[in-house]
């Protein structure tokens, strides 16, 4: 009896050992593939630490010799990139907060109140899911031209705050919150707004965080609108600033500097990503309505 079980144990151990080796090997192959897949990024980082003369001689090197921080000190000491970084932070933060407030209020009405015109209004909200900004931004551009609001941060913040998707997502979520919680509060004489603040919002923190993260990312990375609206250097966002910088410095002469600026632009959002990694990965399933 005991010998049988010890043979079983041995076999199990052996298999576990084999699995471990196989897993290690698998991870190793994956690592090689990931290195190749990300090699342009690695090359970009390396290039930002190389000198121009050595880049002129040979671009294709993954070793930063001779090593220099010249490119980095140049871009970090030019105030523009920091200024644009600040603009991006301000625009994306205000845009995200405003969207949460504006859209959650509307979503609460659609999820909980029984009112006239509810269905047609909700359908009108859903129309927005089908209308890409790229197809309707021309009148918005003309509106801001008439108001003389181009080249202000307000112009970069306002469009997109009223997001159909945000209302849709939160309406779905609010509908799932048990009504009894509110009814008890209503017995105590609390108004709708008070219920919204004290009951609904605290229960919706996860979905709102997920939404906020993606709104922030989307706004930080937005391209077409800031490209046409912000045409003067002081109001560029980081993303648009990088485009202008790489055009004006020219690649032939300032290869390393351009690469440093590209990394400077990507870095804040990469840090943001690692800070919220779990929520981003799980939020994608929520946001795309797959789960």
């Amino acid at each position, binding site marked *: 009896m005991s010998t049988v079980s010890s043979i079983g144990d041995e076999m199990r151990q052996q298999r576990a050992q084999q699995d471990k080796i196989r897993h290690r090997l*698998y991870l190793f192959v*994956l*690592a090689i593939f990931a290195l190749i897949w990300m090699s342009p*990024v690695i*090359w*970009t980082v390396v290039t930002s630490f190389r000198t121009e003369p050595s880049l002129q001689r*040979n*671009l*294709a090197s993954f070793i930063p010799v001779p090593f220099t921080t010249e490119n980095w000190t140049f871009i970090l000491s030019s105030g523009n990139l920091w200024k644009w970084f600040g603009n991006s932070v301000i625009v994306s933060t205000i845009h995200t907060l405003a969207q949460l*407030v*504006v*859209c959650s*209020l*509307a979503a*609460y*009405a659609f999820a909980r109140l029984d*009112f*006239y*015109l509810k269905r047609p209004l909700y359908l009108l*909200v859903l129309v*927005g*899911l*089908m209308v*890409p900004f*790229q197809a*309707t931004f*021309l*009148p918005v*551009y*003309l509106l801001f*031209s008439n108001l003389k609001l181009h080249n202000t941060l307000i112009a970069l913040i*306002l*469009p997109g705050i*009223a997001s159909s998707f945000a209302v849709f997502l939160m309406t779905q979520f609010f509908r799932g919150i048990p009504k009894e919680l509110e009814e008890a509060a209503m017995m105590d004489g609390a108004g*709708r707004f008070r219920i919204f603040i*004290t009951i609904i919002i*605290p229960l919706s923190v996860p979905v709102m965080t997920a939404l906020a993260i993606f709104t922030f*990312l989307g706004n930080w990375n937005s*391209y*077409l609108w800031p490209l*046409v609206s912000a045409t003067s250097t002081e109001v560029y966002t*980081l*993303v648009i600033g*990088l485009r202008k910088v*790489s055009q004006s410095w020219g*690649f*032939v002469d300032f290869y390393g500097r*351009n*690469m440093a600026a*590209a990394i400077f*632009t990507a870095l804040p*959002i990469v840090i943001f*990503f690692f800070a919220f990694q779990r929520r*981003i*990965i799980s939020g*994608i*399933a929520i946001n795309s*309505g*797959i*789960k």
Partner: protein
Amino acid sequence: MSGVVDLIFNALEIFNPIFAPYRRFNEKLSPKGQQTLTAFIFIAPFGILYSIFTILPIFQTIWISLHRWEIMGTNIQYFGLKNYERLLTVDTQFQQAFGQTIIFVALSIPIIFVGLLFALMLNRPIKGIGIFRTIFYLPNIIAVTVIGLIWSRVFASDDRGLLNAIIVNFGGESIPFLNRGDLATIVVAFTTLWWTVGFSMLIFLAGLQDIPDSLYDAAKVDGANRWHQFRYITIPGLQRPFAFLSVLQVIASFQIFGQVDVMTGGGPAGNTRTIVYNIFEVSFEYFQVGYGAAMAVIMLVILMVISIIQLAVFRDQGVGN
């Protein structure tokens, strides 16, 4: 926390007299009327912004497209359907851009399959495999300017690009990746794949994890081999992600702009110009907003038709919410 909120609300009650007329009005209404009033107040901020930035612009775009309309607003005249006539009959540039957009849509389909491949590769219960999910998803969150810049440097011509530098180092002849229309198209499409494949991967990973293990166990008992398991359990189980991603991919590819603007500027010889790039060019470089708006309307119609087909298909299959 709730104590503080209560305190604030109680403090706010000193403003009650101001709202007295509103209260009196509200009390006269039927219960549904009262809720309607409350609902409209809740919706108002959204409603105003939504009207200005989404709903009205649809109609304004159509209106502008019926005019000869210069961007400074000095020269506006009614044009009827002349803009559309020009688009559809004589404007070979737009027709080329339209065809090019369709090509990009077609070239984006592989992204879904590469995403599936990555998901299958990473859907194993191995410790440490999560890192690779992060790595392959990472490019997706980075701005298009950065992505475009990096890849345009990889593919730059002569020995000013990484790939060509390598080719030249090995004694080969440099390839004009970005200076030949067909190659530039592939380069832009590949860059898009590299940038966005992580998203498809994550959607498929979520889908794979939704397939119950019991299905595979049952199949194993029945002696199904790996291919059969994949073919008859995995693929049908991923119907939802497939449907979702293909629609999303088509819609996103119709709107390709950033990559083209950063990497090729629509060139060479207009070979990578897309519809959105053409709208941008016509409106902001030739200042013909009316004409740009006509292109925008055509794009809007196509995307709405796709969305409606999507809704119909999803409803029939019981897919989606």
